[in-house]
């Protein structure tokens, strides 16, 4: 009996100090264990941290996956932890009809270099194994948890599980093998009616105790959208009114803020992660300029990002 071997593409986006564009294949060859799980190819995307947080970079990662989608069963992205959730959330929207496993992983910062190297190796092996499954999800794999990426949030503890999520977004756990929780998976064969693009002409505002309404309104001129992060604070009534007035012409998202919730033009969001909400907004305003349509799309689940 022979078992058909799967092909997995590893995209390197940084995370391991010793890896460079020229030595990526050699670094992977030092993990011969990977070859017994699948046929592995690799692409060096970039390791420059400053690039990892730009929409152009996210689209670059998504395009690398899309152009190779027919050849590979699954994709593993090695990525720095700090900006991973932005890239992973963006990919989950840009490729929400791909129907193949896309697994983000990397190296946890540990007390010792040895432990760090061990963790990236174990994470990578777990990720490659998951990338051979039939799993239409964009996930993060760290420690012993497989989590839907656009519902994940960072935790700061000694644990190797650097990301957590609500239980419904835990897609699998590692014990002696990988147990996938089928009931938490998205439906297979999503057909997207959207274009794979982002609009980054967004003004990002954090609610501060001190602000100047006149100065703030100047920042919104010419913007395709305004994203306000409330950080759980109350929004002063005059500021909410300003947003409401603005929202008659430009889409405005008010994320995680204590508000009256009564301004019908504002899009109030508190049921997804910050990274998901911001990237989703950039994705949605790239699809349509119709304010009602934008509001409707922001409030519905497009890639499993809504936390119920």
């Amino acid at each position, binding site marked *: *009996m*022979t*078992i058909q071997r799967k092909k997995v593409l590893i995209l390197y986006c940084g995370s391991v100090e010793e890896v460079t564009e020229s030595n990526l294949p050699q670094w992977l060859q*030092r*993990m*011969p*264990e*990977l*070859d*017994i*799980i699948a046929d592995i190819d690799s692409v060096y995307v970039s390791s420059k941290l400053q690039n990892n947080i730009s929409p152009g970079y996210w689209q670059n990662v998504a395009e690398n996956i899309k152009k190779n989608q027919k050849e590979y069963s699954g994709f593993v992205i090695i990525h720095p932890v700090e900006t991973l959730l932005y890239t992973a959330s963006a990919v989950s929207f840009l490729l929400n009809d791909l129907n193949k496993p896309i697994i983000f992983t990397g190296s946890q910062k540990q007390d010792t270099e040895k432990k760090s190297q*061990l963790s990236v*190796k*174990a994470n990578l*092996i*777990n990720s490659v*194994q998951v990338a*051979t499954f039939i799993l239409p999800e964009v996930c993060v794999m*760290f*420690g*012993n*948890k497989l989590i839907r990426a656009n519902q994940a949030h960072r935790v700061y503890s*000694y*644990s*190797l*599980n650097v990301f957590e999520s609500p239980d419904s977004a835990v897609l699998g*756990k*590692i*014990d*002696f*093998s*990988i147990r996938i929780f089928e009931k938490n998976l998205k439906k297979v064969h999503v057909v997207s009616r959207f274009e794979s693009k982002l609009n980054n002409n967004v003004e990002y505002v954090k609610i501060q105790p001190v602000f100047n309404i006149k100065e703030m309104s100047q920042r919104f001129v010419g913007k395709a959208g305004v994203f306000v992060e409330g950080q759980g604070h109350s929004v002063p009534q005059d500021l909410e009114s300003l947003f409401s007035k603005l929202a008659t012409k430009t889409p405005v998202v008010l994320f995680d803020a204590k508000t009256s919730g009564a301004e019908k033009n504002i899009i109030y969001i508190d049921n997804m992660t910050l990274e998901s909400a911001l990237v989703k907004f950039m994705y949605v305003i790239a699809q349509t300029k119709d304010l009602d349509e934008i509001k409707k799309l922001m409030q519905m689940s497009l890639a499993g990002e809504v936390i119920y």
Partner: protein
Amino acid sequence: MRIYFSANESQNLRSRYQKIIDILVMSGNSVMSNLELDKSARFSDTDVEKFRAAGQTLLEQMDSLVIDATIKSPENGYLVALALTHKKPTLFLHEKGTDVDSNLLSLQKDKNTAAFLVLQDYQEEKLKKYLLEFLQFAEKKGGKEIPKIKFTLRITPKIERYLHWKTHNTKKSKADFLRERIDKMIEEDEEFRRYNK
């Protein structure tokens, strides 16, 4: 040693799997398995939660891995890969006449992995020999000579007084004294030596 035994469920091979577990247990090891077989144990729920909270996998808690891959499964390759990553001695068994993934064969030549991997085709009558050879290999690789297994032993006041008297004014601890006595017993136990041949 704590050994994880993995195999693909098969009614035809069930008695053979049980035999593997029997041999491993009779040699003084505790065995955990993906199969529900006699004498193989499982972690308690409390332990599982503790390891999960620390982000550790259960395989990391084991000393070595034994796989019977007579019936092929993609899971076998994954377990071998993960075990080798954590430098766990691994015995990959497959019945004589069955194929092995060529990538596994290449692992035996790789300097990083060869030291921990034993690939062995077998006929049932030689299973015991191969398993016992592997146990010796695993004890060396796993550094079992270094005392690292901790357990609580309750003793009577009389034994405590004796241990104190025996080690008093020597540079030996009570634990060293007991370890040496047990090592001596193992050396002198011909029946145990015969069993391990």
